């Protein structure tokens, strides 16, 4: 290293491919996160439920273990769509909490410190900036939701056999797509809230507020107007309905995923849930488009 020369020199060396540069932001955000002890403990804690589920699947297929514990196979939880929906519900709720902790810290410091002109004065677009920040959340939340889910599905298929796999391959898709919908929605929501509010703790609080207050408000609308359309602003209801349809369960079965359960008789058509979620995502993109700029123009 020629630091002792203390002179300026131009750079003529190798450059990284343009398509890969958004990963720089993801990598740096991941390194920042890794240093936080709370994150490490929480993230490892979220793996408890998948491990318990994996143990359950294993014991259910291990007669000697069942005999040893004095349990009858029939009395154990059935490994079907309800099992995987319940798994998804728990993991996605953990994902929500972790996202509320991580998400607001991704964009707001850049806005608070006026760092965006530095990012965007390089060969680096606003879309790449959002993609780089979002990738961090997409990877992190995937590690908590559909990746362990698919592992459980693979374990069950391995222990149960080819016929079970063929009959239930839709569950694998349901796990992937259901998690995907939730993850993308959460990532967009937290980035846009963090871009709008700028102050990390407030942005985190607002995320909780949007989730729980909107649900309460939806319930209030239902109760006052004696309708079910208040559920259109209840995010857990919207996502729960979409999951039930992705798992090919009849919506009227009323089960759904834990934390994302739809009350019997209050079901709204799935296409309306898609439209409602889509509109919220578009609104988030619009907010990001307004806030992620090289310079803020006062008109």
């Amino acid at each position, binding site marked *: 290293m020629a630091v002792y020369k*203390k002179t*300026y020199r131009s*750079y003529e060396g190798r450059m990284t491919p343009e398509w890969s540069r958004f990963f720089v932001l993801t990598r740096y955000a991941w390194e920042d996160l890794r240093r936080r002890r709370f994150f490490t403990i929480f993230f490892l804690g979220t793996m408890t439920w998948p491990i318990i589920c994996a143990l359950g699947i294993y014991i259910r297929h291990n007669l000697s273990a069942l005999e040893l514990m004095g349990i009858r196979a029939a009395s154990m939880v059935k490994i079907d769509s309800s099992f995987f929906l319940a798994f998804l519900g728990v993991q996605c709720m953990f994902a929500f909490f972790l996202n509320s902790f991580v998400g607001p810290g991704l964009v707001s410091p850049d806005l608070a410190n*006026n760092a965006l002109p530095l990012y965007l004065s390089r060969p680096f677009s606003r879309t790449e900036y959002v993609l780089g920040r979002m990738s961090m959340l997409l990877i992190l939340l995937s590690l908590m939701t559909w990746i362990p889910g698919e592992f459980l599905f693979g374990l069950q298929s391995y222990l149960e056999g080819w016929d079970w796999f063929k009959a239930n391959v839709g569950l694998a898709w349901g796990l992937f797509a259901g998690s995907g919908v939730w993850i993308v929605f959460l990532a967009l929501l937290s980035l846009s809230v963090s871009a709008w509010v700028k102050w990390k703790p407030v942005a985190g609080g607002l995320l909780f507020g949007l989730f729980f207050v909107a649900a309460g408000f939806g319930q209030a609308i239902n109760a006052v107007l004696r309708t079910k359309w208040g559920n259109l602003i209840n995010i857990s209801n919207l996502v729960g309905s979409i999951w039930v349809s992705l798992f090919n369960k009849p919506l009227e079965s009323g089960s759904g995923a834990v934390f994302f359960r739809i009350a019997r008789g209050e079901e709204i058509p799935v296409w309306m849930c898609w439209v409602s979620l889509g509109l919220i995502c578009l609104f988030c993109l619009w907010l990001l488009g307004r806030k992620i700029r090289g310079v803020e123009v006062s008109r």
Partner: protein
Amino acid sequence: MNVATQPPVIELDNLVVKLGDRLILKKLTGSFSGRAVGLLGPNGAGKSTLINTLLGFHKPFSGTARVFGHDVRTHARQVRSLIGYMPENDSFIADMPGIRFVRMMAELSGLPPAEALERSHEAFFFTGLGEVRYRNIGTYSLGMKQMAKLAQAIAHGPRLLFLDEPTNGLDPPARLRMLQLIKEIRDRGDLHIIISSHLLRDVEECCDEVLILKNGNIAASCNLEAERRANRNFLEIETRGADESFVAHIEQLGCRAAWGGNGRIKLVMPEGLEVRRIYQLASDRSVQIRRLNRKRDSLEDIFLKAMEEPANGSV
């Protein structure tokens, strides 16, 4: 290479920029090829808007702006890959060590991680922040933050450097250090610099070409190097005992001279003629030279003149 013969760094062709309903830049036309171009003008003249437009932050309403021949509207990415930018305001990530911040910025410009780290160290040592490069930027003083901004602007080795008020908030030694660094970068000759500043002395010291903006128009543009050369040859002398015959003798040396009365003579020296010859002639003719001034039409004079005259938008 002479400034005039260099390929243009920035070309403006009837560039109009509107922010909302406000017309900020009004049909700017001109071409600039100086090694260091100073951008001057009062507040609200459009300096920052011009820089932001060249960076692709504002879209031109009409007309074109080109950087090294690339249209900023259609080839913003190529333009940005050639640029290093030091913004006027505080721009950094407070809770990040300086070296990590500059390395990340260099990586975003396309440098591989190892090269980005090496060049970040170099940039920090070059700007004099080598000893504090592992400290969080939030703990830096104002002067250190300015230097860190310069470090991130040069770490990736750009071909064009935009410096927006680089000496803002610096104490005199830090200001001198910043100007020295800018001159050092300029003199290496492998990149061009655009400096936007309110401080005429800074621009005069660092730049060889100046663009003066006023109300979104180009009020004046001059080649400081040519001005300096011309000024070197322009003398005003105050004499005792001189008359018009003395002026005629001066003209015989190849000078263009004008008799101003009361012993005052203005003259333009030809290339190669030394002032010593004028003194010699005066001595031979028993004329006393009481005072000799080189004409010094400073940047301040040029600026003030430009502010008085109506601006027309083109060079």
